[in-house]
């Protein structure tokens, strides 16, 4: 029994590299030289869909359960863009909020019907612990996000 406990503790300590540190890298190394502003992408999103971009901004929200997405602030007020990864590919820590991220990935378009949009925003509100009125969504929604391949958080 003591050996089992010791083994478990040893395995847990091996997970130490997962803890947050300054300039933490996630996924593949960043390779693009040019940084594209988030506002440029959102102003002409259709032109960017499918294209690889590098963006930079302050992290304003992180998925609280699996760390599978984060939102970074745009260079323009009141605006942000979602950085999405498949579960487990990269895990963004909640402690990253307020830090700066540089992210590379492809711009994606997500088209949602009215019902899908209501479910999506209801789920978001549930994650944030805030209330949501489904009637506030009155039309299908088109969103843009970046499917990240690599990120650096400082």
């Amino acid at each position, binding site marked *: 029994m003591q050996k*089992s406990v010791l*083994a478990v503790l040893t395995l847990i300590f*091996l997970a130490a590299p*997962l803890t947050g540190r300054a300039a933490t890298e996630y996924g593949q190394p960043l390779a693009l030289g040019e940084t594209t502003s988030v506002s440029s992408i959102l102003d002409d999103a259709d032109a960017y869909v499918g294209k690889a971009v590098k963006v930079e901004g*302050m992290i304003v929200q992180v998925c609280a359960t699996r760390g599978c997405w984060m939102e970074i602030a745009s260079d323009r007020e009141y605006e942000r863009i979602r950085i999405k990864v498949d579960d487990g590919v990269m895990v963004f*820590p*909640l*402690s990253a909020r307020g830090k700066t991220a540089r992210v590379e990935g492809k711009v994606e378009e997500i088209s949602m019907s009215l019902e899908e949009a209501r479910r999506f925003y209801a789920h978001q509100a549930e994650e944030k*612990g805030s209330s949501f009125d489904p009637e506030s969504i009155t039309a299908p929604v088109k969103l843009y996000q970046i499917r990240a391949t690599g990120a650096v958080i400082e």
Partner: protein
Amino acid sequence: MSISWRHVNRVLHRDMGYLAVGTTLVYVLSGILLNHIHGWNSNYRVERAFATIELPAVGVDGGEEFVEEVLARIGETQGYRGTFRPDPGTLQIFLDERVLTVDLESGRVEGEVARRRFFLWAVNALHLNRAGTFWTWFADLYAVSLGVLAVTGLFMLRGRQGLRGRGGWLTAAGILLPLLLAWAFLGI
């Protein structure tokens, strides 16, 4: 002196069993936690508190001065990392491990603290293979050991208690049930 295969089978089953206990408990705990992570966040404990303050006269466009005054009025002495306006009526202030959300009309401040549940976060991370290459190889070895345990377990008992009797029925049920579930819910 010849050693019977049954003896080898028993020794293998016994020793692999002892070796696998610790890691199995990690996977048992994290498996249940991850299955229900949307109902209960086993990675983080998120707490919220609320207060209402009189907003500084300088106004949110006062930038740093406004933010520092808000922090002073809620008794916050820690410096902040940055701010964000999700909409014209809201200001978010990011501190270390905490986020304050200020309603710029009412002065209501919501403070959110998210603290990692270190042990549970760690077992979840191990389960999801986030502990690096060494762990990946270890987890593969562990998976193989489970396979050895399963197969050696089939031959532990003989006769009516073994594969030819009760054991056979239970083994068949254990194979059929997941197939049935896959057919019912995944359309396979």
